[in-house]
């Protein structure tokens, strides 16, 4: 069977149409993020205190939904999985960068995508966060030449789960579902414990 997806990578739409569709896809994302409650830091920061499970519930159901559709499309031969963009894994920068990101996120209550929605709904803290993003990018551009070796260390290439544990895309899918549910159950259990302890 001939693979037709993704449309852009397989030449079914040109780059101009891809750009126009980018705006449309973004509108979908923005609408969904706002309806999901990501337009306010009040729904994002409490996850780090195990007071809310909105963020992990949305993340996990989105991940499993997309992963299921990609798995089926690939197994039935409609999708050329190799044409889907997967970020290269850089072990050490991801670990250190993730720790730095977590500090900034609990401090601000925002991440870059949700802040765009926050700005649209006039959250002043989202606007200040976005200004900080611009300054932080400039800062990184300036220091990059000094950390270039670290920033590119631990390069594992396009490192999908099957490359780590063996098997094929079906194993990747099963591990993804298991880890997603595991994380969600952990967060829900922690929230239950917190709820029983009550506010302090």
């Amino acid at each position, binding site marked *: 069977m001939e693979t037709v997806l993704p449309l852009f990578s397989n030449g079914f739409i040109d780059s101009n149409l891809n750009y126009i569709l980018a705006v449309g896809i973004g509108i979908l994302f923005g609408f969904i993020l706002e309806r999901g*409650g990501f337009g306010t830091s009040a729904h994002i920061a409490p996850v780090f205190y195990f007071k809310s499970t909105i963020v992990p519930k949305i993340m996990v159901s989105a991940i499993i939904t997309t*992963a299921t559709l990609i798995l089926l499309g690939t197994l039935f031969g409609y999708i050329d999985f190799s044409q889907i963009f997967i970020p290269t894994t850089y072990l050490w920068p991801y670990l250190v960068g993730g720790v730095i990101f977590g500090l900034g996120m609990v401090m601000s*209550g925002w991440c870059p995508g949700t802040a765009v929605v926050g700005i649209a709904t006039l959250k002043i803290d989202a606007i200040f966060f976005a200004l900080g993003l611009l300054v*932080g990018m400039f800062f990184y551009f300036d220091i990059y030449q000094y950390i270039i070796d670290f920033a590119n260390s631990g390069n594992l290439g396009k490192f999908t789960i099957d490359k780590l544990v063996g098997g094929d895309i079906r194993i990747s899918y099963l591990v993804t579902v298991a880890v997603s549910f595991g994380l969600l159950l952990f967060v829900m259990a922690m929230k239950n414990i917190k709820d029983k302890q009550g506010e302090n």
Partner: protein
Amino acid sequence: MKENNYWSPVIAGIILGIALFISFMVAGQGMGASGAFARATAQATFTVDPSFAQNAYAGKYLKHGNALMNWTVLEVAGIFIGGLISALLARRIKPEITRAKGYSSGKRLFFAFLGGVIVAAATRLTRGCTSGQALDGAATFSVGAWIFMLAVFGSGFLFSFLFKKQWKGVE
């Protein structure tokens, strides 16, 4: 008129997952956000100082012309429009500084700004943020997405005691 017409988180997640799948199937890539802020900064700096095209990091954004002519930048413009439409329909647009009752708004805005500086630098190390790295990566079976997510969550939890006053009672 209902004052709160948010979707339930699982429904919102499933719809987001379908939209993310559509994005992968059309463009070959998923949701992104931090890249647009990086490109905006690069383009603005370049406009003021053309020698910035030689910058070790931002040079790659500038060598093909305007850094803003890019899929993720246009998609982020869409996110803004979509967020605005949803909030308008739900009558949820009002200026607000989200924080604990009685917490200084100056301090809150300072931490929002500083958090932004920190998050921006982090996203360059991690090649994306909660959307472009965590969500897209996990949905496409990347190990790196999970390394990133667990580091973010662990760190946020570890440092959460520092900002307890700012978020007290905020839900």
